[in-house]
């Protein structure tokens, strides 16, 4: 394996880790709101969050590119604030990946919250826990299997993405060239040996991830 492959692996791990952490932080309140709201906005917001499940990644990447680029609203705002525009940067990859993997994190957490129901919160409140206290001392521990599933899916899905990365990040070695794009590069250049290393590694990685996922699910259903 050559240096550029290792750089791509490192970059991918960095991206996926950062994105997973951000997704848990952003996705948890969204999941909580979706699990508990009676608002009429529940349907539209739920659908919006789930869009990346259905849309081709290139569509999402395309619109993000337009929005964040020099003629897009956010791109212009960033220019005005003297900030670097996001397309073709690592930060841009992070933003795109968070949006793209959001449903994979929100849905398991939302399901876990819904399965817990209101009762444990009512009990905690009757024992003088404030709502925030009850959330961290009761809901988070009870929803742990949901969080584990969400983290694994969010991480794995970010590692596996291709279309959004290509649209938003391009293919800049060491900066935005992640694994999936690197494999595409090798294949395009006929370097099948290098492609095999990375592709085979991905197969193994994905298998292990799914093994962990199903393992944790079985365990959690047993402990209930």
């Amino acid at each position, binding site marked *: 394996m050559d240096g550029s492959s290792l750089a791509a692996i490192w970059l991918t791990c960095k991206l996926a880790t950062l994105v997973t952490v951000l997704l848990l932080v952003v996705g948890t309140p969204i999941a909580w709101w979706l699990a508990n709201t009676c608002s009429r906005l529940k349907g539209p917001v739920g659908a919006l969050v789930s869009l990346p499940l259905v849309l081709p990644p290139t569509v999402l990447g395309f619109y993000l590119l337009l929005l964040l680029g020099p003629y897009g609203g956010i791109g212009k705002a960033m220019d005005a604030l003297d900030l670097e525009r996001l397309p073709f940067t690592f930060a841009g990859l992070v933003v795109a990946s968070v949006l793209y993997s959001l449903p994979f994190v929100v849905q398991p957490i939302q399901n876990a919250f819904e399965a817990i129901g209101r009762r444990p919160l*009512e*009990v905690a*409140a009757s*024992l*003088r*826990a404030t709502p925030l*206290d009850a959330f961290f001392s*009761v809901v988070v521990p009870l929803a742990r299997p949901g969080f584990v599933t969400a983290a694994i899916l969010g991480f794995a899905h970010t590692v596996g993405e291709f279309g959004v990365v290509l649209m938003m990040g391009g293919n800049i070695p060491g900066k935005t060239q992640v694994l999936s794009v690197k494999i595409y590069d090798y294949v395009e250049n006929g370097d099948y040996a290098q492609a095999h290393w990375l592709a085979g590694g991905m197969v193994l990685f994905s298998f292990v991830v799914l093994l962990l996922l199903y393992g944790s699910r079985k365990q959690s259903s047993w402990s209930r």
Partner: protein
Amino acid sequence: MEARFRLAYPGFTLDVDLNLPEKGVTALFGPSGSGKTTVLRCVAGLERAPGGFLKVADSIWQNDAHGVFLPIHARPLGLVFQEASLFPHLSVRKNLEYGMKRAGNARGEGFDAMLDLLGIRALLARDPEHLSGGERQRVAIARALLTRPRLLLLDEPLAALDVKKKQEILPYLEALREELNIPVLYVSHAPDEVARLADHLVLIQNGRVTASGALMATLARLDLGSAFTDDAGVVLETTVAAHEADGLVRLEFPGGRLYVTERDKPPGSRLRCRIHARDVSLALSAHNDTSILNVLPATVVAIAGADAPGHVLVQLQLAEGGPLLLARITERSRRALAIAPGMAVVAQVKSVALL
């Protein structure tokens, strides 16, 4: 304690105005769907009745006229639900400590006494999933009480338990009744639990309070037959007077005595018993040729129609200033004996349920 709540749902309106004693167990009794649990949830602050008012002891928990509404976590109350509500991710000890810590009882005041009172000392290290239903409820009650609440709310705490488990937990609840000096609101649709535990009875039907008063006096009312139907009857508070040689136990109450079969309570202890109206028959004079043991002289106070067809309920006064008794007899017998208010009769009690 004062409570006024009015809540309207499609097809159901709750409208209650309660003034309850600051001590003792108040049973909110009524059929399912009558709104008794909603009343409890309003008191807890889990439900907000707009325009509601709630005062417990000297503190106002809700007064919407002045925009006062304490959130539940700011109300010093203990709450026990129908089904086991222990946190599954915490051991029994951690469950107990959860409320203690947050209620400013980190030092565990009363912890040991509570373990003994509810018989849960041996369970401390266990996980809730390894407890029986009755054990879980006992831990839940201890957890609630260790927050040193000013009011204890029990929402059908025995309804999810089978008869055997119920019998196992009732003595603990009785012991609590003796120990606690805070008011208890006990929601139930089981007449036997109410008869055994309550001091005060609030009858709720279709979202309204149809009766509220001291347990014994309220149970003896003639106009509530439809709420109790076949379970109509009174509760007598008696004292165990003596264990007699032939295996019978003599119970005494102001205005009379009752004989019941063996019960392992020592002389001097108090015992509640329940006499169903359907188990009381009337005669005009005392017979010596009857196998019925408990024959009590009484005076007819009033007569009203019973819920069962062809029957009437007769309210009787046992001795001067003694307790009231209900008898359910057929209208035909009433006519044959010409039973009317003011008449002296003899009540024959076919069976006494010891509580």
